[in-house]
């Protein structure tokens, strides 16, 4: 059961990477538009993440950074978190490291970064940079 789950995850993952690498979301209408932007007119912290993925998978790091810098800077963090969460029987040391990076004050740092990014990219004089 668990093995089947991982096979499904990997197959969907590879398919999505293929689609996002091959097709530029800015040029094709079938990529879903952000509902928050559509209904409110304001950009959300995730706007540009599909375009950023396309650039990332094609190794255009600067272009990805321009589309959504939050996605680029958080990608290594999220991947590390996913790996650590799926380690079976973690050692006390690993739990301690996890607690430092993904718990306590780290959560506040994440919250402040996400909310500041959200606000700054909606202020006209800052928005070109975020």
């Amino acid at each position: 059961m668990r093995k089947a789950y991982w096979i499904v995850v990997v197959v969907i993952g590879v398919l999505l990477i293929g689609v996002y690498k091959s097709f530029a979301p800015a040029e094709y209408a079938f990529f879903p538009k952000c509902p928050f932007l559509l209904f409110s007119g304001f950009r959300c912290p995730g706007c540009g993440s599909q375009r950023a993925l396309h650039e990332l998978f094609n190794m255009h790091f600067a272009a990805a950074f321009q589309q959504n810098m939050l996605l680029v800077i958080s990608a290594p963090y999220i991947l590390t978190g996913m790996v650590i969460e799926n380690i079976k029987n973690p050692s006390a040391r690993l739990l301690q490291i996890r607690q430092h990076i993904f718990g306590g004050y780290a959560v506040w740092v994440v919250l402040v970064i996400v909310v500041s990014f959200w606000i700054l990219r909606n202020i006209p004089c800052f928005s070109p940079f975020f």
Partner: protein
Amino acid sequence: MENQMLQTPPKNWLVQSILVTIFCCLPFGIVGIINATKVDSLFRSGNVEGANQAAANAAKWTKIGFIVGIIWIVIYAILMFTGALGGMMI
């Protein structure tokens, strides 16, 4: 082992909340992160029940964000399909 269990706060869903924030484009992920901040501070202050409650809330909002995101993608696909049939590209 039991001691270690007592010292480890409940899962705060931080990673999943960030993923929902970035990919589901809805503020529910941020509600998840706000609840994640409560999980640890409550646990540190000895309020284990409160920490479990905050963890359950973080899980709830992250899942709501994920499900709403999926529903949006389905609605978008339907609009896209019918719109494309009518010659109306968004």
